[in-house]
């Protein structure tokens, strides 16, 4: 007989596959943070004055703030002066004007990651923006999107080319005073993606961004803003990887979504940042603020996340349901393996009448991982007829990991209907034995059980990425048995 716990340990002890470093010359600002560094970032990006002013306001506010300590996480104190706040692959020009100008090594990196940037090679129908350390290196399908009136470009370009949209919407969902990490991001953000879908336009393809941290001792502070104007529709996916390094690296992103009346935004994340080694050395600190506002009536925002990487994950993709009849959704799979820690969940803020929200959270804990669901359902007095349904399931593998659930509810309208269901289960020896006695290897058995557990979330992902997520989950759990 085999010891199931040991086998599970071996299965979940899989190595990280994206941990290579690209040897590329880069232009990296020395570590440290002060107003001069912020001015330098702003100047390098050729930003208008309003942008610099906003950054500086954020920075000054940040100096008065303390890092949050309410999460179920143990975080070593961070030295913000030891981080470099800007790193860009060096090139002759300020930025690549087309793919031909992009360093071949960089293209090879994305090839390795499975993100071929050449449009010919790309899956038909998916436009890709790739962010390498602090800058966006290429955006594909720009032309075809432009024909539909869709703007999809690096955030830096948007600041220069569409300042009126940036000024109007930036910080309108996540204000620069929002929280410690969002405020830091507002001061020092470097790049990210910008999307604007005009009225009545259904974006003709999936949009996606791949984020990659390469340089050591850098932080990545990307900023993404997606605006879906009235009656429009867009689906967006982000993927993330990083090299294996012994030190922790900070990734503090901000994502803002704005959905006007009858608009729909579907935002999917497959996060596979380097999680650190078995003993918890190194790995990415993924401290991210994501929030969408259903600003217009009958709008819909749907977050789907598959979080398998990072040493520490701290993120709560949220929906502010302002418009009447608007809908917010959150579908999440979070895996905490080895010594990974995840504190993740969502906030659903019901303001408009007949607003509806759905939360489906699947947490998987293995090794010594600690997985926490933290969610808030807030129903304001104005939210007549609001409804929420929350489903939180935890799956434990082995006996040294933990699963925690903190559902908060603030209901200030007596007519609201709020439901919460939660389950915690151990990946059963019985389930494993059942599958094995039908001829499946232990590894296959673990995979199908975990994928079954995640099914309700995976089916929300766009087709190509659902397959990718399943594979990623299998990879994160596979390994030698026995």
């Amino acid at each position: 007989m085999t010891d199931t716990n040991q086998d599970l340990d071996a299965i979940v002890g899989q190595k990280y596959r994206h941990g290579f470093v690209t040897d590329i010359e880069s232009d990296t600002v020395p570590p440290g943070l002060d107003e001069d560094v912020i001015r330098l970032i702003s100047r390098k990006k050729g930003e208008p004055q309003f942008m610099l002013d906003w950054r500086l306001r954020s920075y000054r506010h940040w100096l008065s703030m303390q890092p949050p300590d309410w999460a179920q996480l143990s975080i070593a104190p961070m030295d913000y002066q030891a981080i470099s706040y800007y790193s860009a692959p060096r090139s002759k020009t300020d930025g690549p004007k087309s793919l031909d100008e992009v360093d071949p090594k960089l293209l090879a990196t994305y090839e390795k990651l499975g993100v071929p940037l050449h449009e010919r090679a790309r899956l038909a129908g998916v436009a890709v923006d790739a962010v390498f350390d602090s800058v966006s290196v290429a955006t594909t399908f720009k032309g075809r999107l432009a024909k539909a009136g869709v703007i999809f470009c690096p955030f830096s370009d948007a600041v220069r080319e569409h300042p009126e949209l940036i000024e109007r919407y930036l910080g309108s969902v996540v204000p620069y005073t929002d929280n410690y990490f969002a405020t830091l991001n507002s001061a020092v953000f470097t790049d990210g993606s910008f999307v604007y879908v005009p009225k009545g336009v259904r974006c003709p393809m999936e949009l996606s961004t791949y984020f990659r941290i390469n340089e050591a001792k850098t932080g990545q502070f990307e900023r993404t803003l997606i605006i879906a104007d009235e009656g429009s529709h867009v689906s967006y996916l982000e993927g993330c990887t990083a090299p294996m390094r012994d030190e922790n690296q900070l990734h503090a992103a901000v994502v803002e979504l704005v959905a006007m009346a009858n608009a729909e935004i579907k935002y999917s994340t497959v996060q596979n940042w380097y999680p650190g080694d078995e003993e918890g050395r190194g790995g990415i600190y993924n401290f991210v603020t994501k929030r969408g506002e259903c600003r217009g009536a009958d709008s819909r925002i749907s977050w789907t996340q598959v979080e398998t990487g990072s040493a520490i994950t701290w993120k709560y993709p949220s929906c502010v349901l302002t418009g009447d009849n608007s809908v917010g959704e959150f579908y999440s799979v979070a895996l905490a393996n080895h010594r990974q820690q995840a504190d993740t969940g969502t906030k659903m803020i019901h303001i408009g009448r007949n607003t509806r929200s759905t939360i489906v959270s699947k947490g998987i804990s293995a090794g010594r991982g600690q997985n926490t669901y933290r969610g808030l359902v807030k129903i304001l007095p104005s939210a007549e007829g609001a409804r929420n349904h929350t489903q939180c399931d935890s799956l434990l593998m082995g006996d040294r990991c933990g699963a925690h659930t903190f559902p908060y509810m603030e209901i200030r309208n007596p007519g609201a209907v709020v439901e919460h269901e939660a389950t915690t289960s151990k990946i059963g020896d019985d389930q494993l034995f059942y599958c094995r006695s039908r001829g499946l290897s232990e590894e296959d058995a673990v995979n199908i059980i975990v994928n079954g557990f995640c099914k309700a979330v995976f089916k929300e992902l766009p087709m190509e990425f659902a397959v990718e997520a399943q594979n990623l989950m299998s990879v994160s759990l596979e390994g030698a048995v026995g």
Partner: protein
Amino acid sequence: MLKIRDLHARIGEREILKGIDLEVRPGEVHAIMGPNGSGKSTLASVLAGRAGYEVTRGTVEYLGRDLLAMEPEDRARAGLFLAFQYPVEIPGVNNAYLLKAGLNAVRKQRGEPELDAFEFLALVRDKMKLMQMDESFLSRGVNEGFSGGEKKRNEILQMAVLEPRLALLDETDSGLDIDALRVVANGVNSLRSPDRAIVLVTHYQRLLDYIAPDVVHVLSGGRILRTGDRTLALELERRGYDWIREEAGAA
């Protein structure tokens, strides 16, 4: 096909099997009967390779191999099948998916080509008719929300699809109403063949009205106290188990 010699097994400190000897040949149907706690299910579990049991003495030979040295999946691939007394639920895992994965693992071992989705569906639909199961079973989660009877039927469906050499049915009749029992028995009977052996583990002789065994064993206190033909089962039904224990105690 199956040769058990002096098998002793325990859970923790408690010895459950205290010297089992049993031989099953191809084509035979054996019934192992006995009161609750006699070790019937333990025997089935040890043969299928469930963790948590320690074999302290004895050997089990299956098709010439040392069965106890094999992993559960290798036993399954070598044609051993256990119909569970309590089939587990695996939420979100498609019934058809698990069955196809199992079947292809077994076929691979037998040197047969794997079945694609269409071939598999054709096969499984055929078997489902036999078990009088609705096609919706295929797309449901494994045993998820199944009634007791549906779970048992599903076990026999799996057996019909996997076509084992040796099938162990652990209390497959428990919790079945008379109609379901008939369907399950039909399924089992249809699988009787000269090169396949079936071992029924059961508390009641009721099942044996529908599946006629060649050999009946009485297991009590971790030992086989008596072996006979069908009539032994009928006698047990009439007289209970105590007299066998008393006779064995006297001897």
